């Protein structure tokens, strides 16, 4: 048996089966991240509440989901729900597990962001008569979001790879499909290299996207403010969003 087969490597690299596995990984990451962010936002706000009726459940949630392995959470969801007569697809179970787990970490990131919004900005909004809800949506969240883009980027990057844990409940994402093909010709190194390359591609694409988001969010904070015309040439999409 040869040490490394280029032929095998390129065959797997071009395999639609593996490619679709990567697409599933991207899909799971995107959906879990968005839903996890929304749930995390709710938990962060609850945890910051003065009322124990709100803050304690939030604290319990974060404690529980950060304190147990994702692998265990996935298995419990996958095997537990059918016993309650709730039948969901493997994909649904995977996304639920990833979302619940990610929300606990995102809640802490979001909380840090909200804590970092200067109190003077909140006082000024109050003095203008804005309600607490208006202050949250118009002042606190937008300012906090800008601050937490770098750690959120970490989370997306991490989640892209963490999705591979769902292979334990037989979710056919990139990693699981690579392992399935290993059974075929035992080209472990070639297959895992292909998988690694896919992960690198996906994280690189995210890096690029994150830079665009950061650029957009930092716009109000650049001292050298470009005219709208220059922005339109350099960043056509983001400038239109801003209008």
């Amino acid at each position, binding site marked *: 048996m040869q040490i490394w087969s280029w032929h095998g490597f390129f065959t797997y690299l071009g395999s639609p089966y593996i490619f679709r596995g990567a697409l599933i990984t991207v899909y799971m990451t995107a959906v879990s991240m968005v839903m996890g962010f929304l749930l995390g936002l709710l938990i962060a706000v609850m945890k910051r509440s003065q009322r124990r009726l709100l803050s304690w459940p939030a604290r319990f949630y974060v404690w529980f989901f950060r304190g147990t392995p994702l692998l265990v959470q996935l298995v419990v969801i996958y095997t537990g729900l059918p016993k309650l007569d709730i039948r969901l697809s493997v994909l649904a179970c995977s996304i639920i597990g990833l979302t619940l787990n990610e929300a606990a970490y995102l809640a802490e990131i979001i909380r840090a962001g909200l804590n970092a919004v*200067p109190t*003077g*900005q909140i*006082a*000024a*909004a*109050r*003095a*203008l*008569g*804005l*309600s607490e809800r*208006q202050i949250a949506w*118009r*002042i606190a969240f*937008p*300012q906090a979001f*800008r601050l937490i883009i770098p750690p959120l980027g970490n989370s997306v990057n991490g989640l892209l790879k963490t999705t591979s844990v769902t292979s334990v409940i037989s979710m056919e994402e990139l990693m699981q499909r690579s392992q399935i093909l290993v059974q075929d010709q035992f080209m472990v190194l070639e297959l895992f290299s292909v998988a690694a390359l896919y992960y690198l591609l996906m994280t690189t694409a995210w890096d690029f996207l994150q830079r665009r988001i950061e650029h957009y969010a930092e*716009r*109000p*904070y*650049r*001292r050298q*403010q470009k005219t*709208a015309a220059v922005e339109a040439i350099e960043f056509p999409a983001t400038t239109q969003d801003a209008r």
Partner: protein
Amino acid sequence: MITLDTVTKSYGAFQVLKGCSAEIGRGEVVVVCGPSGSGKSTLIKCINALETFESGQIYVDGMAVRSANTDHSALRAKAGMVFQSFELFSHLSILDNIMLAPRLVQKRGKEELREHAETLLRRVGLEQHADKYPIALSGGQQQRAAIARALAMKPDVMLFDEPTSALDPEMVQEVLQVMMELAREGMTMMCVTHEMGFARQVATRILFVDAGEIVDDCPAADFFAGRCSARAQAFLRFEEAHPS
């Protein structure tokens, strides 16, 4: 316009306000002065309920501030506030800063509001900076924008909490100018400041606060002629000797 009735406030064992009472009429320009830590900022923040107080009462245009059913939004629409550190919303353009609260709180129409905002910006000399973000403006410009933002709510009274203390000396005047103009137009104003020059020129009355008490409450002319408490006179001598 504003009635302070034995307002009392403590931070734990420390009593910041020890029963402050005063009456401010429409069109008056009242300067609140006194040493640092005397409670003057706390007092002015009680008026628009940014600070709570334990006993006593404040009325703004007949509206009780400390009550279970106080409509804070309505109260704050009556009393505009300008802060020491400007506090323009850093993620919004100057124009959006001005239009945000009238749009959300008063539900005013976009067209009318835009016109009003542009008028206000011209008034404070910032019409060319409407689309910039706060960071691109100097401190003096930011404070003038903050004044315009407060005025956009069409308040009955303007509260200033050390509006020039965070400014470089050369920018103090441009802000004071805007405030003087406002006073001349008949706006009811209450201003915490160390700018004794401003107090001399525009104040109708002085409240001298020391250690949580309103020690002097007298016409500005009397105050600066020395017809005030010994404590106020000592404070005044110090301020004149060390102009900020």
